[in-house]
């Protein structure tokens, strides 16, 4: 468990980060959303000591990080940034090996770990391993950056707009890859972004930040359904908000008894996928794959998607 306790960073009269208290449960993804200048980058840098707090502190599993030498602390916290910051004079493999090397792991173990991570991130160790950063595509460099951050099995992974430099075509793929990776490894992640859709997709918990303060903290469903104030509702009030909300639930949770025709939808598809299919095909019900005599009804989905109404929202 990572705890940010009363963290503040003041530059002269500017309160970049103002009394932020936040708990990140082990194995979950917390996303901080905010515009540029909201203090979210500073907050991230306070966690690994790149910025020294004016007041407050961070605890990792109950241990005050002020008592750990900063370079030791940073070796235990992974860090991935927008323009990846790969060392241009080192190959991809050596970049990934940075922290294990600093920790003095035996050569064989480092090599094995690099191979393992590259495979995990779909980078061919034999081909990509020997390349220099300038020889990598944007997506490859981003994944090498993530592999480097994960190399020494950090207790916490900090990510500063990790997909910001990717073009939209590959960004969605990179986001789902990260999500799958996080589920598989169970890494605790603190990620910052200015993109609410990205936050809703990736987060277990979202903290909306403005002017150095947390405006709202909650699950994606909370933030979408019950924005705490006009600032947060401004961030989530976009045309496809109902679809975003529906995308948080899976078909399996809303299966009802009854027959339906047509091609079945997988039980692990999201409700937004199901609704989109119904609108497109003009059906009111869809059969669910692997579940005979069960279906999902449009009427029920529409009940889920709207703003809070008594009894309609889970």
């Amino acid at each position, binding site marked *: 468990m990572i705890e940010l306790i009363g963290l503040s960073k003041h530059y002269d009269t500017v309160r970049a980060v103002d009394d932020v208290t936040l708990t990140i449960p082990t194995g979950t993804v917390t996303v901080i959303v905010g515009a540029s200048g909201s203090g979210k980058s500073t907050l991230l840098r306070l966690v690994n000591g790149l910025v020294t707090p004016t007041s407050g502190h961070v605890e990792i599993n109950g241990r005050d990080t002020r008592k750990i030498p900063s370079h030791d602390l940073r070796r235990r916290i992974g860090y991935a940034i927008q323009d*990846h*910051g790969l*060392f241009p*004079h080192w190959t991809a493999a050596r970049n990934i090996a940075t922290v294990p090397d*600093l920790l003095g792991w035996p050569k064989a173990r480092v090599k094995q770990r690099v191979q393992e991570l590259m495979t995990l991130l779909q980078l061919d160790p034999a081909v990509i391993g020997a390349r220099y950063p300038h020889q990598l595509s944007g997506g490859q460099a981003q994944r090498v950056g993530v592999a480097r951050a994960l190399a020494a099995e950090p207790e916490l992974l900090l990510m500063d707009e990790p997909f910001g430099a990717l073009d939209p075509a590959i960004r969605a793929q990179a986001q789902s890859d990260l999500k799958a990776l996080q589920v598989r490894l169970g890494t605790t992640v603190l990620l910052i972004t200015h993109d609410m859709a990205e936050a809703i997709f990736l987060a277990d918990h979202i903290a909306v930040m403005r002017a150095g303060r947390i405006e709202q903290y909650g699950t994606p469903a909370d933030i979408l359904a019950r924005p705490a104030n006009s600032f947060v509702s401004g961030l989530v009030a976009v045309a496809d908000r109902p679809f975003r909300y529906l995308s948080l639930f899976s078909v399996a949770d809303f299966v009802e008894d009854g027959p339906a025709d047509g091609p079945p939808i997988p039980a692990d598809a999201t409700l937004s996928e199901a609704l989109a299919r119904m609108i497109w095909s003009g059906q009111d019900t869809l059969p669910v794959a692997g579940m005979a005599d069960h279906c999902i009804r449009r009427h029920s989905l529409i009940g889920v998607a709207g703003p809070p109404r008594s009894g309609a929202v889970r």
Partner: protein
Amino acid sequence: MIRRISVACLCIVVLAFLLMPDMFRPVLQPLVAEGMPPIYDRANLLMLTLAHLGLVVAAIIPSAILAVSLAIFVSRPAGSEFLPLSRALTNFGQTFPPVAVLALTVPLLGFGLWPTLLALFLYGLLPIFENTLAAFVTLSPSVREAAAAMGMTPRQRLWRVELPLALPLILEGGRIATIIALSTATIGSTVAARSLGEVIIAGLNSNNLAFILQGGILTAALALLISEVFSFVIRRLQYTQQAR
């Protein structure tokens, strides 16, 4: 390719001249009056060239060590206050004419090697210092931040990231400093340091155009060749780190 071939040819001609100067007698003979020697004969040209190179190396290496150390120091938080002072110092070394250094230091250090070494040493500081500093300043902020965030100590950041990335620019400074030193070393012979300047001065004293030319051209050829060696190494380094 053409560049490589011409460098190789130049190298062969210089070596041939140093090892078998008599072969060039017919070329230089028309430049001198009857009875005068066309090839410098008061000392072995190869030995003079080696002495010349030795002088440059002996001055530039300590100059580079000081200039790089100084640049490292003033680019750390603790040393940033000393940046203006260091700039002034190295600028002074560059603007103060080497001849004046010789004139001022001969009474203190005596004739020969030492005043020349000092003059060349001072002359080499500025290009190396300024280039090293520029390399540190232009280092990508995200690379710098990544090095800190990965948990490198300040010393590890310097040795593993900053210096290797600065190396091409540092070597560029070394190239400039070395070329300047190679040509400036000739004036050392006015205070009796052994260098190719001896050949030029002998030519001036005895009105021997062949001497002046062979001293001058040898010096220029050496500068060209050494510059090529530096450029080759720099290009190789940059190939692996284009995106700096």
